[in-house]
């Protein structure tokens, strides 16, 4: 029996974690619907702060990374394609690699590295300092003041960052194509446009929605579980990063299977 219990413990732990995530999401949604007019301004202010940190402050990092990635992808791919006389597939390649997969995925990884760690640390420090309790006892619902703005902020930021990532990656790809192979802007964009479909937009939007939820609620879960000591904070941050990365990759695979399999 002890052996069986030991075998089942991780499964039970994982199911409890999923249950807690579902509780956080549903409770935050429910509390969002209960917001009154006067409270909207406070929540909007907090959301703006989150957008500034997660979105605006990461814009150069994300754009720079994407520019380099787009250029490198095209250098590697074009040499193979031109050898086969398949230059027309340049757009297919960019759409397949960058827009469909790497854009949302790498942006989410960067946001996990910058923002989910920050959210977990901040919420953990707030727990230890009694700030979360202080909010609740003074009538400020922590779901409305802490969780909802972070979720909205991460969601909006992720959307903006993916748009910038895709644009910069295409720009990087075009620069290489133009400088090294003399491809014109019209040819390049036409090739990309022909390869894009509405399904790609739908898949990317779904990814953004789900990734934002995974990033935010993993960070909130581990941050808010901190109770006693500051040594719990780095442990919570590590768990947040690992858990959010696994969730994002799993969701990415699930969406790819759902849309393209």
């Amino acid at each position, binding site marked *: 029996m002890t052996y069986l219990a030991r075998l089942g413990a991780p499964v039970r732990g994982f199911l409890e974690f999923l249950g807690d995530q579902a509780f956080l999401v549903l409770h935050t949604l429910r509390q969002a619907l209960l917001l*009154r*007019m*006067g*409270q909207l*301004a*406070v929540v909007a202010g907090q959301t703006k702060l989150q957008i500034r940190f997660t979105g605006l402050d990461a814009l150069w990092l994300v754009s720079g990374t994407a520019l380099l990635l787009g250029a490198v992808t095209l250098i590697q791919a074009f040499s193979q394609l031109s050898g086969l006389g398949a230059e027309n597939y340049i757009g297919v390649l960019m759409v397949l690699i960058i827009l469909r997969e790497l854009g949302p995925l790498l942006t989410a990884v960067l946001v996990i590295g910058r923002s989910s760690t920050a959210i977990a640390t901040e919420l953990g*420090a*707030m727990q*230890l*300092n*009694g*700030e979360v*309790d*202080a*909010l*609740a*006892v*003074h*009538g*400020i*619902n922590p779901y409305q*003041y802490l969780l909802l703005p972070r979720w909205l902020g991460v969601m909006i930021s992720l959307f903006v960052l993916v748009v910038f990532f895709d644009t910069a990656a295409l720009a990087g790809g075009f620069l290489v194509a133009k400088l090294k192979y003399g491809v014109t802007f019209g040819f390049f964009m036409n090739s990309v446009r022909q390869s894009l479909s509405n399904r790609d937009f739908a898949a990317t939007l779904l990814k953004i929605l789900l990734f934002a939820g995974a990033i935010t609620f993993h960070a909130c879960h581990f941050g808010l579980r901190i109770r*006693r000591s500051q040594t719990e904070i780095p442990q919570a941050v590590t768990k947040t990063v690992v858990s959010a990365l696994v969730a994002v990759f799993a969701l990415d695979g699930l969406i790819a299977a759902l849309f393209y399999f």
Partner: protein
Amino acid sequence: MIDVRDLALDALDGRRLMEGLDLVVARGGNLLLHGPSGGGKSGLLRVLAGTERPARGQVRIGGQEVWPGGGILALAGHVRMGFAFPSGGLLSNLSLRENIALPLRFLGVSGTELERRTGEALERMNLQAVAGLRPHAVSVSARKQANLARVLALDPELILLDDPLEGLDAADRTIAQGLIQAWAADKSCTLIIAAEEGDAFSYLEAARLQLSHAPMSVELP
């Protein structure tokens, strides 16, 4: 206002701090919890506030079931509560003024009314000079005063104060004592104070509950 039945409370190390506590405090009543450190005063306050789950028992605040139940969230929109924490409790990314104003803004108070109530609380606690600073930039005494100012501005019907005079200098202590006396005299609010030394509140007309590691005793005035 407060109705506690058969309450049991454990310490963090699992030690049983209290067992079978029944407590009733009428609306407008005052209660002083006193006793040595580690006796469960702060824990009992947190249970009453709905932020700490007791080991056993029922807690109703203003007719709302807090335990067993949803804790503090069960009181949202039903009971306006103010809690002065012994340390911390202020949002570290907001100034003292913003900390005091935040619960009011969430209540829907805005404009001149918000400024008036925040300003009056800051003035009463003598915090105007440091109102624009964040909690880490002010003294421990100012942080404790800011906790009291937040409660004052909120004008709550239930006030919980955890060691409100601890760490205050003489001038701030006089200001805090005056405020606590005013709350105790106000029949529209219920006041619960936890303090290590009950003598510091000898001037208060309040029921007293002595908490210790041994079984508890209740002394009514």
